[in-house]
């Protein structure tokens, strides 16, 4: 097999990331436990989520050691999802509004 897929780094990094993921998961659980509300809640959830996702992809899935060509293949297409999310949230708002208008006349 080609040497580019070899993973020479030590076990230590996995243990560190594992502990980090544990801590981050505990943090996101505590957001619920302490009942943080509204924008504080949503931003904390998103921060912990993206940190966890980033560490899993970068370290566990080794993306940070891959060639740039592969990184772009994997990270550019999901931008389309952001467009979908934006469109669907506009649509969801509109549906909610029309339901209120229709049912609460």
């Amino acid at each position, binding site marked *: 097999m080609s040497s580019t897929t070899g993973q020479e780094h030590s076990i230590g990094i996995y243990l560190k990331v*594992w502990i980090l*993921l544990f801590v981050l998961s505990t943090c996101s659980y505590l957001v619920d436990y302490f009942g943080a509300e509204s924008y504080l809640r949503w931003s904390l959830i998103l921060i912990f*989520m993206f940190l966890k996702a980033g560490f899993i992809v970068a370290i566990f899935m080794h993306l940070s050691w891959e060639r740039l060509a*592969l990184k772009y293949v994997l990270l550019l*297409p999901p931008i389309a999802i952001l467009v979908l999310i934006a469109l669907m949230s506009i649509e969801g708002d509109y549906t909610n509004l029309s339901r209120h208008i229709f049912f609460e006349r």
Partner: protein
Amino acid sequence: MTEDISKSSNFTDPGVSGMVGDWASDKQTFDMPWGKLMMWIFLLSDTFIFSIFLTGYMNVRMSATEVWPNPSEVFALTIAGVHLPLLLIAIMTFVLITSSGTMAMAVNFAYRGDKRTTALLMAATALLGASFVGMQAFEWTQLIVHEGVRPWGNPMGAAQFGSIFFMITGFHGLHVSIGVLYLSIVAFKVARGDYEERGYAIVEITGLYWHFVDLVWVFIFAFFYLW
């Protein structure tokens, strides 16, 4: 990443010129086993599937006029008289993260050629995955039998809650179950020595799939259980 234009034809250049080289040179673009590239492409497509599910969930939740059931209460457990919100879900999260850790170590040991440790770590990963599925089965039972949640309605509020919950966690649970099977088969073949000559890239490929399952759970946990 520093870039040196004089070395732009260097295939080992990690920067943009290296990427241009990868694509433009008369060679295979992605220098890796084909199975690994195909797994990445599959995972990219799976990313889209789960994203569409979660976007659908967002749309349905935003447009629902009834109150959305509070996941913190729906998934709470009372143990020895103590009311604990989302306890089971938190344990499931830790189990899945731990399984990702053992999997990452299995990949490392595989590339060192230590097949015994690799097989053991993969078996541990599969076992943790199986316990995740078991806890999910318990969670579903709780919800269906005790809380009366159905895909078409529930006593707590918006009817869409049930269908979204069963579809998203069901699809994720299916991924975990298939992953357990996949891990068991590869672990068995590793232990038997099937890859001594072909190399251990398969362990890394299996690992990519397993980490992805963990990755998806991170998003489900954040958007469905915590939001």
